[in-house]
């Protein structure tokens, strides 16, 4: 059986990848990484989905969705946030040193 439900999140990953490779502005690149991250998290969550099911909390009647992907994505989100914080602070550092966030100007590439 062929499933099309995941294509949206894969598209997010591909878009993020495109931004990371094609854009030459550090903030945009960092945003691209974030988009990729979101895509993977969305993908993970949807893997655990069960039709007509609710959140796995015992005082609500079942059936429940798979709780593992939710737990894993919780971890993955926190990790993504940490990477983002560090990337942004490195970008701030680069800006302090060079006065710009455009990669071409930083590396001295002639257009």
């Amino acid at each position, binding site marked *: 059986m062929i499933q099309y439900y995941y294509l949206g999140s894969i598209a997010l*990953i591909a878009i*993020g*990848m495109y931004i*990371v490779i094609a854009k030459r502005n*550090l903030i945009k*690149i960092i945003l691209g*990484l974030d988009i*990729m*991250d979101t895509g*993977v998290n969305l*993908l*993970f969550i949807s*893997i655990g989905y069960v039709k007509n099911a609710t959140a796995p909390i015992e005082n609500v009647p079942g059936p429940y969705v*798979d709780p*593992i*992907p939710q737990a*894993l994505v919780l*971890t*993955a989100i926190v*990790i993504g946030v*940490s*990477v983002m914080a*560090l*990337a942004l602070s*490195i*970008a701030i*550092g*680069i800006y302090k*040193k*060079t006065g710009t966030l455009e990669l071409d100007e*930083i*590396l001295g590439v002639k257009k």
Partner: protein
Amino acid sequence: MIRPVLLIALPLFFAFLSPIIGIWSKKGVRYLIIFATALNATLAGILLLEALQKPVFDIIGGFQPPLGIVLMVGPLGAIIAFIINLVAFAISIYNLKVEKEPIVRYSMLYLLLVMGSTGMVLTGDLFNLFVFLEVTSIASYGLAAYNKDKKGYLGAMKYVIIGSIGSTFVLLGIALIYSQLRTLNMLDIAARIGTMDPYVKIMAFTSLFLGFGVEAEMFPLNTWVPDAYDGAPHPISAAFASLPAKAGVFALARVIFTMFSFTNFLWFVVVMGLLTVFFGEIVAYTQKDLKRMLAYSSIGQMGMIIMGLGIGTTLAVEGAFYQMIAHALGKALLFIAAGFLIYAARSGKIEDMKGMARNPLIGIPLLIGALSIMGMPPFAGFYGKFFILMGGFSQGYYAIIALFLAASIVEVAYYARFIKIVFERGNESKVIRPDAATYVPLIILAIIIVVIGVYPKPILTVLQHVGTFIAGGA
């Protein structure tokens, strides 16, 4: 009886403790880190002896796998963990040379880098492996930019970007495996990997392979290596070459052998390894800057390890593991020496370092390290390359062996050039004597290299277990 989890819990304990100690005494934190890594190395040594009897499983939280997380330590994992912690101990002494503030934060990041690399080697759970990969790489990002100059920031930025792409791939691979098998334990995955759809299986393998390839400095995703190594403080360059890189390549070995046990897909690994070797060695030959040269050489060596894993016979994998050990020790030594040379010459260019290594405290370890990395007998590096070659020979990969030898010759050429320059006669007046924080780790590492080169029996005893490792054991 020692529990593997202590190797992770104790550094974590000390890392969380150090901000409190740092309020009173910054010096105290530095010595605490040395103590913590020494303790860890001792524990890892004891663990190695235990794992030689039979693989150690440490169930965390009291839930049987795959319900809970399990640490899975076979002899090979134990020896890599031991070497990582040993090198980490040596480097932590050299850390005393770092003067730049905030030193307490630096120490914590370093200790957690060690802890993350150890965790990557010990864990037996795929998602836990990802978490430790992230611990390692975030600590590395912070340390790579620690110098807070333009070079450091740019190297770290490159590392962050490529590292994040890598972790996205790892997560994708985990998602693919989880969606089909609904489990995360490596041995559970290994037992049921045959039921996966073949295309999904190959995609999962490729994603994990590329993802861990970032830390293992594999070819398409290793452009961060020279910049990050170059921009990082000297102890951190040494640590990068021996801690996260080894943990990454061990994770690759886990993916290849423990989880997927591919036999017909290994040519892919060999090709990636070979490309990495060529990229590394040839660019290294053209480098004028010492740290960049060593970084590219590190790429080349990691490529050899990946090739050894890819050839896949017992002998070649033994060689790969031997090479891992030798490279961890040798590259750490060379980077520490490079740090001293750069400090003495006040320049990173190799040509400015004429005769700088003529002090025996620095010269003899440097020579031992360089010869070991070049693969000269009787030093540790020789056995690794030799076994990989023999393994490839027995599999009939003649063309690949020829290319491998050619790359080794290039490597010998540029190391010889480097040694010739640093031992050249002339400007003796400028040669300075290293202080204890520099020569103690150098001598420790050099002694180990000589010992395991001249008397390789203990290592070979451990490496006998490679057969069970390839067959999918711990």
